[in-house]
């Protein structure tokens, strides 16, 4: 299959596509972002001691702001434990956030006169990483898919018809797979069911939390192409969370890089992958395995574990592992800046800000080049 190869060599660039104008669910038009997230924060308390008091907190997601444009795929990458999944759960309101606001197509979520949680969940759905545990083992998959519409008041027969139609859309024959149980399906088939389940409420946005990470490469390619097909035909917008840089490059229009609960870089996929501005992004990209044996990595570009999110470093959180760290990095945390523009490429690093006081500040060249000079 040619699709498989395209993932490896990745010469194919998806075009930035906008949502078709005729979508009746659209409110603000194409210029208005589908989702705006403002200063979202989630600290998990650490309790302990005899009286179960609050001893500290894990800063899982800290002041995260970004926007998702209509019809785009926003990839979110980062190391394990950097807060990607917490962010997904916060967006779905599966866990409450400490502070921050969320605006869905111009309407504030969960506020008076805004969009209710129930309405948000109609418009935004999620596909989980573990395809097995996200399906009820006691329900035939057809009923799992029909459950969402049933909850929202659809008649049983109608919900079943919706489920069968979706099974067909995700490439599984309804008459063959509809009455099966999850344990009778393969991982890829289960993930297709999960996608169908997420689509059952006819949402406008899908959050895919490591949706293909647990699948093997060929099945990954099938599911990724299915996602692209569905996006075009159902007018969807994706937030695609993954630690797999190649997959994110393949499917995303824009990419957001997270480190220790903060956004460190955001920009169009080409800009990020060819000229990363943040040293962390550059290191992440260099740590990708290369298919060319002549270009083997002698040692990992990023060594050690990320610092403890309970007690993150002062200033820039990446400075403890950064090759360019200076005094200013410990003093002040670098700002990311506004990024509503779809072609804007921003990084939270003192080196990209001209007046930050960093010796390499204001450099137009990517840090990839700077890295070479310094070594």
């Amino acid at each position, binding site marked *: 299959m*040619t*699709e498989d190869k*395209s993932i490896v060599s990745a*010469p*194919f660039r*998806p075009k930035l596509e906008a949502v078709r104008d005729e979508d009746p669910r659209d409110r603000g038009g194409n210029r208005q972002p589908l989702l705006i997230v403002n200063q979202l924060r989630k600290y998990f308390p650490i309790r302990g001691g005899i009286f179960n008091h609050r001893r500290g907190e894990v800063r899982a997601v800290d002041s995260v702001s970004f926007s998702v444009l209509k019809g785009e795929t926003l990839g979110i990458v980062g190391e394990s434990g950097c807060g990607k999944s917490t962010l997904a*759960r916060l967006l*779905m309101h*599966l866990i409450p956030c400490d502070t921050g606001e969320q605006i869905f197509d111009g309407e504030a979520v969960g506020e008076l006169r805004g969009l209710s*949680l*129930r309405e948000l*969940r*109609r418009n935004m*759905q*999620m596909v*989980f*990483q*573990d395809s097995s*545990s*996200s*399906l*009820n*083992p*006691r*329900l*035939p998959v057809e009923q*799992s898919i029909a*459950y*969402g519409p049933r*909850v*929202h008041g659809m008649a049983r027969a109608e919900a079943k018809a919706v489920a069968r139609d979706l099974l*067909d*859309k*995700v*490439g*599984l*024959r309804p008459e*063959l*797979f509809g*009455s*099966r*149980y999850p*344990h009778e399906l393969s991982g*890829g*088939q289960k993930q297709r069911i*999960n996608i169908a*389940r*997420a689509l*059952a*409420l006819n949402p406008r946005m899908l959050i895919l939390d490591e949706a293909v990470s647990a699948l093997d490469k060929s099945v990954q390619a*099938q599911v990724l*192409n*299915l996602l*692209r*097909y*569905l996006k*075009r035909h159902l007018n969807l917008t994706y937030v695609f969370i993954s630690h797999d840089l190649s997959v994110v490059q393949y499917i995303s229009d824009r990419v957001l890089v997270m480190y220790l609960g903060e956004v460190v870089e955001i920009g169009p996929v080409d800009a990020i992958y060819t000229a990363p501005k943040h040293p962390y992004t550059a290191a992440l990209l260099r740590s990708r395995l290369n298919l060319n044996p002549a270009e083997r990595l002698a040692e990992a570009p990023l060594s050690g574990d990320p610092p403890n999110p309970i007690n993150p470093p002062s200033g820039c959180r990446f400075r403890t592992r950064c090759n360019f760290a200076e005094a200013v990095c410990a003093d002040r945390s670098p700002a990311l800046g506004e990024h509503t523009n779809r072609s804007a490429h921003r990084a939270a690093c003192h080196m990209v800000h001209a007046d930050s006081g960093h010796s390499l500040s204001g450099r137009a060249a990517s840090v990839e080049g700077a890295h070479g000079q310094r070594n």
Partner: protein
Amino acid sequence: MTDVISTDAPALRHGLSAPDIKVRSYLQTVTHRLRHDPVTLFFLAVILIIALAAICAPWIAPFDPNKTGTLYRLKPIGFRGFILGTDELGRDMLSRLIYGARTSLVMGLTPVVLATVIGGTLGVTAGFHGGRVNMCIMRIVDVFYAFPSVLLAVAISGTMGGGIQNGLIALTLVFIPPLCRIAETTTTQVRSLDFVEAARASGASSASIIIHHVLANAAAPLFIYASSLISVAILLAAGLSFLGLGVEPPTADWGMMLSNLRQAIYVQPLVCALPGVAIFITSLSFNLVSDGLRQAMDVRA
């Protein structure tokens, strides 16, 4: 390079179409497995026979179970129409065993059913809500756990006095803690799984999630454990009657019959052992049937 976007779902289907296999529903799978399990079927038949005998006792018992006869005390098995002999008051053993099945089955099934409903509700509530609710319910349950079950049953029915009703209440109270704990544990496990999160993400209420997703997965272990408790309940009820705390004479009950006949163990050992044999067969049947059900109901095996 081919255009990847042109890939559509129907094209993907070719690589994935599975061979046409017969798809069975859950109930069909369970019955199919049970039908091929002769041990479970046999003991299920034994339970049905005992239950049928208990229901039809007035018609099938050869004698009045409470009619005493001083001339026929402690006669051996097969003595003059007394198929299983007579007890210490000259009453027909077979008739008393058939009538005794009534009390034993009532004492075995009622407390288990009641405790499953009450304990299951408490456990699912505790497990699903977690936090403070969980702590309150489970700590109260733990208090009951601190006592050995037999001692607790004896203590409760001892304080409230004898009789079937008090015996049933005592047994129900004894069985609530373990059933509650099982319901709580399985619910806590199920609650943390992604499909519950996914159900919540689709906007479902807690009640709907519990009914459609939690109960279906938590009910199987609860049901299986409860069915194994039936034999324990019969034994405990027999024990209560043995101590004089359960059924009051002259009502026939296997436990009390065993208790009253034990003085005659050297006179008519076979006859004296009969109530014990009845208890043994019944509890063994319930145990093996519950084990067979557990195997048949495990869809993933």
